[in-house]
């Protein structure tokens, strides 16, 4: 069991997952998003290579209306 914090919310997973699997789990596949892991950008090209570890802090962001 690993626990991640995604956008401030705890999320549990039975087995280790990579970033692509997290994106799928969040139903965000194909969406314009960007991800930061423990303060570092995860380039989209590395989503499938980067395995997430217990305790990782993730920020998943989108563009929204703003001034």
């Amino acid at each position: 069991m690993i626990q991640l914090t995604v956008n401030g919310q705890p999320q549990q997973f039975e087995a280790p997952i990579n970033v692509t699997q997290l994106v799928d789990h969040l139903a965000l596949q194909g969406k314009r998003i960007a991800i930061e892991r423990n303060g570092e950008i995860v380039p989209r090209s590395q989503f499938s290579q980067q395995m997430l570890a217990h305790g990782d802090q993730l920020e998943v962001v989108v563009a929204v209306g703003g001034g």
Partner: protein
Amino acid sequence: MDNLIIAGKTYTSRLLVGTGKYKDFDETRAAVETSGAEIITVAIRRTNIGQNAGEPNLLDVLPPSQYTLLPNTAGCYTVEDAVRTLRLARELLDGHSLVKLEVLGDPKTLYPNMVETLKAAEILIKEDFQVMVYTSDDPIVAKQLEDMGCVAVMPLASLIGSGMGILNPWNLQIIIDNAKIPVLVDAGVGTASDATIAMELGCDGVLMNTAIAAANNPVLMASAMRKAVEAGREAYLAGRMARKLYSASPSSPADGVIGCSNTGK
């Protein structure tokens, strides 16, 4: 052509608009299109987890292929939050490096914290961001931001969202006179005449959001703002007449007025 050039890229519109506070994306799109703006600001926020997965995305409505998106750091009160937000924005927008930096000092006034803004600008410039920076209307700070390598300085006219117009045209004038990079008024414009005055002062552009979005008819106000910015720019280029309390120089001929026996004096 009288174009606006920011970081080497040419724009025909001198009106930049935000995309917040509209009632829906249809209104956002209609207002942005009517404004004629080519550069539009967007905010970067956490996506909803596990809810509204199918909700429309702003970038589907205002595609990066059609507009120059200017991601901002609205809501950031620290150097770290601002820098992290813009790194995420660059990744989100496929390496796009033109950004709007603002580091706020206080949630009541949303006045910028210039000490933190200077620190954040330095980090971002080192990371090859092209930084358009929201600033107080302090001419010294504006010059420091220019000297460190910001691509545009954007002094406030009055507080964000206040609609109070240009409270200190004299400071703006000094900033404009000193600057070799574009100066854009950002924040405080309330109505069309405010935008015109900013442009008449010699600003290179105006950035606004609430003045359009909070109007009773945002699309009509977007049209007004487009004209206001164009009118102000033309008046600036034309060069206004000198102010005189009395001119004694009527616009119509003084001679030949009927029924007069004198020479018109």
